[in-house]
């Protein structure tokens, strides 16, 4: 099973990006293999609108079953939910810490968007 973490960096020690739609990258971690790849989300950084929707479509294509991020807005939440991807809000500083919290079952699945649209 694969999990996407929002990040601005390239490895596990990189910061967990609090934003979903406008995160620069996704670190896609394969729990079985214990390895990861980096997926780009740059096209959304300067999107005038719909960044969350596009980002949600991007991660759906990566075949992940869960997303761990700081916050998730209503439109991204709708797309992710429709793609049957679970969303976990997390305040960890780095992707590595977020991964540990996820593995240890310390993160609770979000049942709704936790911020308004256009949260900056």
């Amino acid at each position, binding site marked *: 099973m694969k999990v996407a973490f929002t990040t601005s960096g390239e490895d596990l020690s990189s910061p967990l990006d609090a934003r979903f739609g406008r995160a620069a990258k996704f670190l896609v971690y394969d729990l079985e293999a214990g390895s990861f790849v980096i997926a780009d989300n740059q096209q959304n950084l300067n*999107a*005038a*609108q*719909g*960044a969350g*929707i*596009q980002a*949600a*479509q991007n991660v*759906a294509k990566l075949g992940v079953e869960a997303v761990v991020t700081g916050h998730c807005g209503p*439109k991204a939440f*709708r*797309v992710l939910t*429709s*793609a049957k991807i679970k969303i976990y809000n997390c305040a960890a500083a780095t992707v590595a810490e977020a991964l540990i919290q996820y593995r240890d079952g310390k993160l609770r699945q979000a049942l709704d968007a936790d911020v308004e649209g256009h949260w900056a």
Partner: protein
Amino acid sequence: MIVAIASGKGGTGKTTVAVNLARTLGAGVTLLDCDVEEPNAHLFLKGELSGSEVVSIPVPQVDPKLCDGCGECSRFCAYHALAGLGAAPLIFPELCHGCGGCAKVCPKCAISEAPHRIGVVETLKAGDLTLVQGRLDVGVAMSPPLIRAVKQRIPASGVAILDAPPGTSCPVVATLRGVDYVALVTEPTPFGLHDLTLAVDMVRALGVPFGVVVNRARAGDNCVNDYCGKENIPVLLEIPDDRQVAEVYSQGDLVVDRLPEYRKLFRSLWDKIMSLRALKGA
């Protein structure tokens, strides 16, 4: 003759200039309030509502029986109003610009369009003036289609004055496109000048002739006049920094009604615009 009153910076006096110019010119003039997010010309030109029409934009609806989930529609939409995930796409009407492209690119003809209400256009009779204003519905983010609906009420002949929204983004461009002349209202301060230069870049890109109105003249420094001189931009009018004007405005009254000496000032603005138009046309 269509003249738009615009500005880069908000609060410089667009509406003050628009309503007082309209009143000075008098009978037969149509004032169109294109600041549909917060129309305010009606506070000064009090009139009776004579008509109200609902404005909608066409948004996609998908027939799930015809859709094979190919995703062409969501790839086409620059505004992410459709999200395709291998099944019938999710639709976000609030992001749709109503272009109809998704329906055109759908290979299965599974997309039709349904109206999505964004606001109303109201017509008011204010004495011998006609006031047309758009009112964007609460929660709607996209004003240009409503602004275009307001502009469809520009009379075929006669004088139309457009009160533009502030700034330099899409709503302002939608307002200024196709007008005959733009008066940019500013105040003589560094803030006013900064945003004026942005507005000048915008109207130059649109190719519309323009001039500057300095409101609250002498309240700040000489930076705006220096800039206009350097850039060869005509200063159409300087409205003095007069406490009486502010008092009349704060009471929702027209300056030219309460302080008749201002009539000739607004008349001179119109004459100047006309003479500059005549020069350009020659």
